[in-house]
């Protein structure tokens, strides 16, 4: 019996949010508590499923650590296969944890305004989980569209002029992106005659030269769509506007949407363009590397230039995308493992910052912000004021500490997970036992990552000084327990990543190792037997 349920577990992260979202539509907006409770319970189950799947993939339960679910019982190249390997499950876990925090945060205010907020969030989870689990290129497109459709709705949530404007640009960019995705899928199908990712990888070595060209064109267009989502320069101009316009919990979830792009690039480059791919081996890696480097440079200039915290965090998201893409492009297991650590840490902290942004806004009344800006512009010296020890309200203490904590992780200063992540990257880059030759690109990457950390430190310090040490904070901001708890929870997850860095790094090493031996994945997907009518494997 247990066996039977474990087999069905892979589809749970997709079905559960879908059903919950559909169920929530039925209740009217007056039952806010009920809606919130249902979505919290469902997301908790999702988290449970993700943890359980993580245990299963990391044990000997499935051969090669890859679980395959044949939807509608059609064997792999013909039907749609869902594949749970270590990377996919890790992303599921990340989605569920961030999702839970975001739900908790929205319970105070954002869930109450507007309609169908909780349903849209659940559909967003469904799209993200599906994109991570699917083993089929066209199915990936469908789940991308589910994610995007939900994100369009969520971006417009709270409906004002800025959001509509940002939403219009976001929707057009993503629609055009989807068209490119479709063209790419069609080209790949024309070249290989299959859309199952494992099957594409398996048939690539023996493909005819003219078809190989077609496939490479298709793959290039495909990667352009992924890179637009993950905001590589010059396809990233939509990101800061969109992030700063979206309501904070939505912006925190949108961070994950950029990571889907990174995930897809990582999956495609390790699975299809591996060593077995013949002349297509490491296709497009130079573009990824230099694109990533330029993206970091662009992002750090943006970080310097931003005045609002929302935009600053948006540019930091661009920096982190650039770092990840550049790290992935080397195609080395040790570096991929370090990049995955960086991915988790940066996702959590950017999410936390998006939430914190709104809370910090509450202490910055528009007038105070204006004065601070003008003073900086005209270089007015502050009158030194007599300070006789004013009691600091608890809310301010929390905001200050949370801001410092988030800044430490974001800029990669010790002792939190951001530091571990960057240290891991440098270690993997400079490790003499790895196959990375110490060329210009390695040093450029290291230099840019260091400078981006410095830029982040300076920009955040400037913002922090102007906000927390501002002359006049007359009324302490009102923070609700759920809001404080969710920011705290995200920071605690970063602390947990730091404390548990040992086991986590080992898991990520295993993830990277299995990513870089795609034969195991291909073999598992293509040899999975269908279940016969009586529930036994024939």
């Amino acid at each position, binding site marked *: 019996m247990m066996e039977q349920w474990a087999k069905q577990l892979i589809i749970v992260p997709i079905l559960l949010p879908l059903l919950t979202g559909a169920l929530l539509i039925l209740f009217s907006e007056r039952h806010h508590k009920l809606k919130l409770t249902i979505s919290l319970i469902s997301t908790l189950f999702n988290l449970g499923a993700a943890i359980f799947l993580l245990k299963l993939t990391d044990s000997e339960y499935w051969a090669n650590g890859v679980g395959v679910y044949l939807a509608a019982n059609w064997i792999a190249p013909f039907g749609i296969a869902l594949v749970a390997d270590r990377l996919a499950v890790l992303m599921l876990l990340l989605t569920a944890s961030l999702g839970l925090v975001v739900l908790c945060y929205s319970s105070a205010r954002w869930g109450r305004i507007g309609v169908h907020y909780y349903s849209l969030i659940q559909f967003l989870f469904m799209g993200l989980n599906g994109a991570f689990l699917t083993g089929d290129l066209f199915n990936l497109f469908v789940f991308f569209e589910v994610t995007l459709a939900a994100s*369009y709705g969520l971006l417009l949530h709270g409906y004002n002029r800025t959001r*509509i404007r940002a939403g219009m640009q976001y929707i057009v960019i993503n629609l055009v992106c989807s068209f490119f995705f479709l063209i790419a899928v069609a080209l790949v199908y024309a070249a290989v005659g299959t859309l199952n990712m494992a099957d594409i990888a398996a048939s690539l070595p023996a493909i005819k030269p003219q078809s190989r060209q077609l496939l490479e064109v298709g793959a290039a267009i495909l990667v352009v769509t992924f890179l637009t989502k993950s905001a590589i320069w010059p396809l990233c101009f939509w990101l800061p506007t969109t992030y700063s316009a979206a309501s904070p919990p939505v912006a925190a979830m949108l961070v994950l949407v950029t990571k889907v792009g990174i995930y897809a690039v990582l999956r495609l480059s390790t699975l299809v363009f591996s060593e077995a791919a013949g002349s297509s081996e490491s296709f497009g890696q130079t573009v990824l590397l230099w694109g990533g480097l330029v993206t970091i440079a662009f992002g750090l200039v943006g970080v310097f230039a931003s005045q609002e915290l929302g935009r600053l965090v948006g540019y930091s998201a661009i920096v982190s995308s650039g770092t990840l893409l550049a790290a992935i492009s080397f195609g080395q297991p040790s570096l991929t493992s370090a990049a995955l650590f960086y991915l988790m840490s940066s996702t959590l902290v950017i999410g936390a910052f998006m939430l914190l942004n709104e809370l910090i806004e509450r202490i910055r009344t528009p007038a105070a912000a204006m004065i601070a800006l003008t003073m900086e512009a005209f270089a007015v010296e502050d009158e030194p004021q007599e300070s006789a020890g004013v009691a600091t309200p608890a809310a301010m203490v929390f905001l200050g500490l949370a801001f410092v904590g988030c800044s430490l992780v974001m800029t990669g200063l010790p002792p939190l997970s951001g530091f571990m992540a960057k240290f891991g990257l440098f270690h993997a880059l400079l490790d003499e036992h790895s196959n990375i030759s110490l060329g210009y690109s390695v040093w450029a990457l290291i230099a840019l990552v260091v400078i981006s950390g410095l830029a982040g430190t300076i920009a955040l310090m400037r913002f922090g000084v102007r906000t927390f040490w501002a002359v006049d904070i007359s009324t302490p901001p009102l923070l609700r327990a759920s809001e404080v708890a969710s920011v705290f929870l995200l920071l605690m997850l970063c602390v947990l990543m730091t404390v548990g860095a040992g086991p986590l790094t080992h898991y990520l090493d295993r993830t990277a190792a299995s990513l870089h031996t795609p034969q195991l994945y291909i073999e598992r997907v293509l040899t999975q037997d269908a279940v016969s009518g009586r529930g036994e494997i024939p």
Partner: protein
Amino acid sequence: MEAILAISIGILFGSGTWLILRPRTFQVITGLLLLSYAVNLFIFLMGRAVINKAPLTVNGAVDPTLYADPLPQALVLTAIVIGFASTALYLVVLLASRGLTGTDHVDGKEPTK
């Protein structure tokens, strides 16, 4: 036949690209529609252009050259539905923006001269 189809896809795609780069939302949405036609035709053609052949086979061994490839036809159906739905959503946002800002410029305000 391939040439005609290729040229028409090219014209559709080119006009669509031109239109989505225009500043008015109505032009943009028309451009998006043209692009989606071009893309759908393109997917359809990737199953090779054939005339008067059934996409379904009967049971047993058959000669695949006698049949059209059914997969792109299935893909194109999904693509049409998804593209149509997202374009409809964009139409709603377009109207909302027109109502809120009083202009149909994509930036939400008339360009200053």
